[in-house]
């Protein structure tokens, strides 16, 4: 007899055999008991959790000749035909390859005919989200007014891609990821029947890697049996599977916490030695840090999309961590992720960056430092707990004020500089006052030159030398002005009755701005200081 993979060989035959989906199977069994079978079901959930299997069991239960309160006998002709996909009344359609309107029209034609030798004609459409919009629309009328002998069972991993009008006409059941414990228990039962020795730690590893999917767990077990034979050890399993285990990321974060460089390098060489792709490793590390950040919040573990056991582990691990550090680490690893593809020596780069990650100082809140400073205590000895809990407390308003005053002192030299440029000599003030006249005079010789000149402002007058400042963005115009400097000097002579030698320089935008509103409006100034940018005309 040809070999059958474990996932097919041990496919559940009864609702009671379906693992980890009691909330669905119990409801379906009760529906039989209370005669409340819907005309259309939609089973949604991650891959390998039992959607199609449950659909088949439901089809069998509906058509079984000896059905007992929702349990198919698995022995009668109908059960046998359905199990071997020979039934004329149960049609299993792959939505991915039969996604067009023509296929659905054919299906609609079939719906009209009564079942041949069963109670119901059952249509199981797997991956229903793959149907086209036109195909969904074609299905709508049938779903709205189905003949009494027809039942629809849709299965999908992406219910959000199913047309809402279809969704709303089905009874929807959501399948959950299986817990590590359920997977381990299921695997143990199977390997006992198969008489294969697998260490408990291997079952744990498989369960972790399966990410809540029993089918993935069984496929991994199949691979291990093929590789190791009847006795599977942890060493052989880790060598063979080639998937980065979650434990490795937890070890990395542990080593980062304690700044243990040698442990980090050992972990990294292990990643390298096992042939894991560095991009996968960095991507996985980023995801791991993200999970820790999410788990850190109140009821944060509920937001994680993984098995309950792993959720708990993340929740426990995140307790001692400072979320602000985690954010900085995520930023750092995100940069690594994007830069990794461009570096010549990825291994060295990753090692250096991970060590840098370990050497990052713990984050502290400016408000806390200011508090310490104001109380005269300059030492900031934070306990881990303090860092984790106090750091994100909203600062009191007084502290905000103090902080902004510190900001002010930090920018003081800049302000001073501005002030000195504002305190002009009376001579320069005179030139500034009549500058518009100068520009008008220049316009008599050429409009473009005067337009260019209007962007500048006299900023210094030393003897006969007048310096005119221009924002950096007018570099090009400056070259034109330099070529016409004589005309400008002549115009100055005519307006001010004074001989001057003109020089043009590029300065910071704000200093050269001659727009009074922009200069004086505190909101605009603050915006520019904070967010950068430039004022457009």
């Amino acid at each position, binding site marked *: 007899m040809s070999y059958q993979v474990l996932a097919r060989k041990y496919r559940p035959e009864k609702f009671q055999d379906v693992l980890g989906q009691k*909330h669905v199977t*119990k*409801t379906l069994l*009760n*529906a039989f008991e*209370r005669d*409340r079978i819907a005309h259309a079901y939609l089973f*949604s*959930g991650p891959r390998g959790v039992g959607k199609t299997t449950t659909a088949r069991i439901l089809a069998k239960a509906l058509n079984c000749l000896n059905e007992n309160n929702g349990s198919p006998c698995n022995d009668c002709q109908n059960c046998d035909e359905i199990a071997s996909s020979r039934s004329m009344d149960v049609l299993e359609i792959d939505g991915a390859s039969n996604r067009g*309107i023509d296929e659905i029209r054919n299906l609609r034609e079939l719906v009209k005919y009564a079942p041949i030798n069963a109670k119901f004609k059952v249509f199981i459409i797997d991956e229903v989200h793959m149907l086209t919009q*036109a195909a969904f*629309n*074609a299905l*709508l*009328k049938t779903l*709205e*007014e189905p003949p009494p002998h027809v039942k629809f069972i849709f299965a999908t991993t992406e219910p*959000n891609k199913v047309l*809402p*009008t279809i969704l*709303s006409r089905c*009874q*929807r*059941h*959501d*399948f*959950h990821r299986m817990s590590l414990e359920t997977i381990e228990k299921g695997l143990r039962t199977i390997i006992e029947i198969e008489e294969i020795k697998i260490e408990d730690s291997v079952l744990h590893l498989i369960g972790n890697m399966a990410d809540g999917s029993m089918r993935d767990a069984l496929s991994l077990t199949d691979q291990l049996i093929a590789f190791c034979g009847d006795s599977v050890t942890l060493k052989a399993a880790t060598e063979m599977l080639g998937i980065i285990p979650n434990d490795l990321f937890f070890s990395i974060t542990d080593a980062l916490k304690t700044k243990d460089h040698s442990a980090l390098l050992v972990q990294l060489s292990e990643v390298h030695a096992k042939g894991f792709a560095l991009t996968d490793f960095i991507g996985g590390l*980023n*995801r791991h840090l*993200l999970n820790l*950040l*999410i788990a850190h*919040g*109140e*009821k*944060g573990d*509920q*937001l994680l*999309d993984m098995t309950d056991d792993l959720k708990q582990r993340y929740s426990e691990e995140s307790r001692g961590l400072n*979320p*602000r550090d985690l*954010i900085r680490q*995520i*930023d750092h690893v*995100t*940069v690594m992720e*994007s830069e990794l593809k461009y570096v010549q020596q990825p291994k060295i780069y990753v090692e250096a960056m991970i060590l840098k990650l370990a050497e990052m100082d713990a984050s502290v*809140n400016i408000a806390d430092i200011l508090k310490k400073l104001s109380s005269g205590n300059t030492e900031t000895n934070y306990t881990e707990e303090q860092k984790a809990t106090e*750091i*994100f407390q*909203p600062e009191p*308003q007084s502290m*905000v004020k103090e*902080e*902004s005053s510190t900001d002010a002192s930090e920018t003081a030299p800049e302000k001073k500089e501005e002030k000195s440029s504002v305190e002009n000599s009376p001579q320069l003030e005179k030139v500034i006052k009549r500058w518009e006249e100068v520009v008008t005079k220049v316009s008599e010789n050429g409009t473009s030159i005067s337009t260019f000149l209007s962007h500048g402002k006299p900023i210094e007058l030393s003897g006969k030398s007048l310096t005119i400042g221009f924002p950096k963005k007018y570099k090009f115009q400056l070259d034109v002005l330099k070529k016409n400097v004589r005309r400008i000097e002549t115009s100055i002579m005519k307006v001010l009755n004074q001989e001057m030698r003109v020089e043009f320089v590029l300065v910071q935008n704000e200093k050269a701005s001659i727009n009074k509103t922009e200069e004086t409006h*505190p*909101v605009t100034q*603050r915006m520019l200081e*904070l*967010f950068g940018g430039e004022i457009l005309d």
Partner: protein
Amino acid sequence: MKQKSLRQTVDEMRGGKVEPVYFLNGNDYFLQSLFVDEVMAALTIDEAPEKSYFSAESVDYTAVVTDLFSGSLFGGKKLVVLHNPTRMSGKTKDDFFDYCRQPNSDNSLIVLLDKVDRRSAFTKNLTQIVPPINTSPPFPDKMANWIEFLLKKNDLSATKAARELLLELSGDSVYHIANEIEKIKIGLPENSEIEESHVADFCGWEREYFPWHLSDAAGSKDFHKSILIGKSLLHHGVDVASMVTQLATLFQELYLMSLPDGQENDLPRTGWLNQILTRKLPTYFNNFSQNELEQIVKALGEADRNIKTGKGSGETLLVPLLHRIAVGYA
């Protein structure tokens, strides 16, 4: 545009007044089917009327309209349900509107239009003839009443916590709530009271959110809800860039409010916030200091740059950003 309420129309029908044409606008399937059932019940005197349902795909609208005009000498009443008949065109469309103006009293027509689009020509024309009945999912404050109604209809009772959780998990449409209540009813032993744990067990179906829900959660400094909504939006294919843009709009408004004279109307406003968010601006404003708002606007700018330069995407970008907003500033 004059509208009729669902309740008022149902009351009229129960009093014996059945209109020959109804126009339901909104995509809550439960409300639509509830209404159709009520019409069926009102039309059933000795025997139920003949019901025909036509969906948008490949309907011969000409035949449908001709059929509507024709009366039967011997047959009973007919109930025709037209679902999204927006593809109707030309003479058929004119005939259809003519029918709506002067309907055949032997027949009953219900037009279901899922999409609420007051600018569409079809909606405009139909609205001028038949007052629309709103069948969109009710607002959150009304949803609690629908839970009550559905529980009563199913002879069930639920604890306060269970009702609240049900509203939170499936309050995006009445249909969603009805689906969950039906499952719970089947799953639980008869006559048992629904508890919070039952709702958590049976309701795996995530409710649907819109980007403004994320802005609301972030403005309320609710990290848990922000992450929940953010992840759900990403899962439903909403681009992280559009989420950042919406958050930036909200926080720019809040920042402008924090500036001198910010409460007055002389400062520029984006005007891009919906009415719910605009109404709640003062509440959000109290949650942040000016310094925090500055840092958040900066962080949003940085996030925008990172998206555009390919330095971050998806959850890796969104989660730390939401943490910075809802828990502590950058």
